């Protein structure tokens, strides 16, 4: 397979969009294309990641719509729906097109507009990824699955609500340095956990998870321009090489897993990505993990191989995962504070890592970052895509 690089990255501010879906994805795409500065080089194909436009926005075939909006005919166009892992799946499709020699330049854009509906419908929409007969019909939602997962994890590994709050505080702090983040608001241990008022400030959502343990419902779009090594070198852009991609699946219903605290698909996807890249978790300088709920950042940091099982929360305590620590996790603010427009998230994680590897992340820049890792977590861990990126000097 041919080597593939990311040569452009852009995104919209996450939050609540006043724009229609088509404009949202066009703006992110134009930002990435501007960043790539392609000149006369044409885009061969477009891949759009999205989970819910058909239901939430009454719009289908949105990749074709994007090609039209950007006036980049006759580029190929495909949409990818793979739940909350749609973003990294679309990225994988773009990678495969170039690696196989079918294309030289591919635009990968993720978009979601979830705030077109009310919170109850948005929660129901996301819950539709759960097992229809074993979970959904009983009223299972993603917060409830995460709540049960957190309860068991806390009992087994000694994780406390204070550890969960530390994840929220860290990621809200990071988001303050990210102009694209949905939430620009610091939170404190006193305010969300220890003060008497915390019971009002941070109400329970699905015990033991409280409001500040959960990501917001966001609109947003993110975009990447992928190119063959040949094109990237010809353009003379800083090269961020796609060193490894791994994907793995697990049982649809969480109850069918031998141990519900094991995120097997995260572990297998990460192992595949590291194997393909020829490096180990110790070589990673910065990571974006899928912290839709605070507990997931801790669990994924272990399953990805950064820390031993049951020790992710100890690394958090020591500040290892903070900006300035040995392995900053979610410098963007993560899903927790940057926001989680589901179809855009996997692409947005890689946008952040591209900026980090190019030294373009501003106040949240991780110094001398060379290798980066992303985990895009679909379902409740039943479809996971892991990616390793490397900066080439």
């Amino acid at each position: 397979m041919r080597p593939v690089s990311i040569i452009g990255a852009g995104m919209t501010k996450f939050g609540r969009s006043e724009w229609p879906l088509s404009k949202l994805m066009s703006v992110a795409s134009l930002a990435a294309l501007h960043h790539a500065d392609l000149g006369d080089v044409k885009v061969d194909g477009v891949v759009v990641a999205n989970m819910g436009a058909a239901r939430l926005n009454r719009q289908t075939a949105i990749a074709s719509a994007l090609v039209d909006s950007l006036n980049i005919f006759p580029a190929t166009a495909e949409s990818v729906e793979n739940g909350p892992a749609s973003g990294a799946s679309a990225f994988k499709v773009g990678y495969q097109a170039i690696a196989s020699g079918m294309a030289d330049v591919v635009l990968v854009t993720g978009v979601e507009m979830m705030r077109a509906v009310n919170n109850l419908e948005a929660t129901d929409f996301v819950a539709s990824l759960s097992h229809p007969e074993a979970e959904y019909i009983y009223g299972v939602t993603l917060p409830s699955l995460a709540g049960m997962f957190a309860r068991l994890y806390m009992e087994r590994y000694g994780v406390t609500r204070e550890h969960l709050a530390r994840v929220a505080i860290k990621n809200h702090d990071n988001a303050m340095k990210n102009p694209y983040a949905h939430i620009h608001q610091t939170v404190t241990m006193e305010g969300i956990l220890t003060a008497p008022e915390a019971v009002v400030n941070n109400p329970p959502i699905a015990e033991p998870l409280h409001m500040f343990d959960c990501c917001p419902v966001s609109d947003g779009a993110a975009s990447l321009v992928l190119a063959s090594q040949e094109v990237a070198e010809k353009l003379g852009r800083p090269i961020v090489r796609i060193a490894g991609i791994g994907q793995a699946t697990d049982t649809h219903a969480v109850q069918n897993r031998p141990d519900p605290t094991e995120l097997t698909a995260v572990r297998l996807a990460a192992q595949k990505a590291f194997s393909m890249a020829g490096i180990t978790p110790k070589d990673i300088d910065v990571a974006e993990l899928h912290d839709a709920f605070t507990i997931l950042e801790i669990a994924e940091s272990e399953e990805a191989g950064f820390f031993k099982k049951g020790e992710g929360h100890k690394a958090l305590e020591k500040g290892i995962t903070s900006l300035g620590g040995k392995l900053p996790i979610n410098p963007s603010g993560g899903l927790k504070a940057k926001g989680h427009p589901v179809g855009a998230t996997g692409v947005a994680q890689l946008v952040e890592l591209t900026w980090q590897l190019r030294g373009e992340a501003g106040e949240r820049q991780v110094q001398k970052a060379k290798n980066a890792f992303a985990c895009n977590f679909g379902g409740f861990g039943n479809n996971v895509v892991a990616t390793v990126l490397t900066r080439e000097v």
Partner: protein
Amino acid sequence: MGNVDELEALLRPPALDMPPYPPKAITLASGEKMVVRQIDRDEVPILLEAIYPLLWVERDYYDIVSARLFGELLAYKRYRVKNEYVLVGLIDGVLAGMVNGHLVDEKVGMSYHTMTIRRGLRVGSHLFAAKMEYHMEFLNQEEVLIVAESPIGFRRWMIEYPLQKKYEVPHELGGGPSWVLTRDTYFAAKPRLVSGSRPVSSELLASAETIVLPAEETVKKQVLGGKGGEK
């Protein structure tokens, strides 16, 4: 025609005695301290100034709430509503939100509006709770009539407390029928929805003596979703 003072006396609704709302301090999620206190009539103009730019913000019904609140504040200042009161939330003196209501009679209160300027910290939830606290614990009323004009309000009041339907009683704001907060509902909800401490330290109280307005751009940014904490 009688003299103006006599006419004015006829135009002013008769007022019941109202003990003042004692200020309290609330620690927010950000760790900042918000002082909740009652305002005097001479503080109304600065609140009108804060509301004015929101009259044209459609998002989350800020336009409707602003327009109604504007009128209610003027009515309070010029004695055109019976026993109206206004509470404000101030962070380092900066206006974070306001609530108002009035007394229908000694037993029944009526909630008017809740307006959050600083969003994302449950300021509105705290201020609404303070308003209910005033009716139930300091005015010692039996019930408070409430309507919601936005889905956010409906979730916060009707569902979270939860309020009971009292559709047979009209609310002065019109629109949706009345819901009611009873003493039983209030005291059941109090442990999870009503917070804050008294007395407020003299230093904190001094910081809340004068209402400071955030810049108009900051207000719009916060209300429209920026959720920043800039002054």
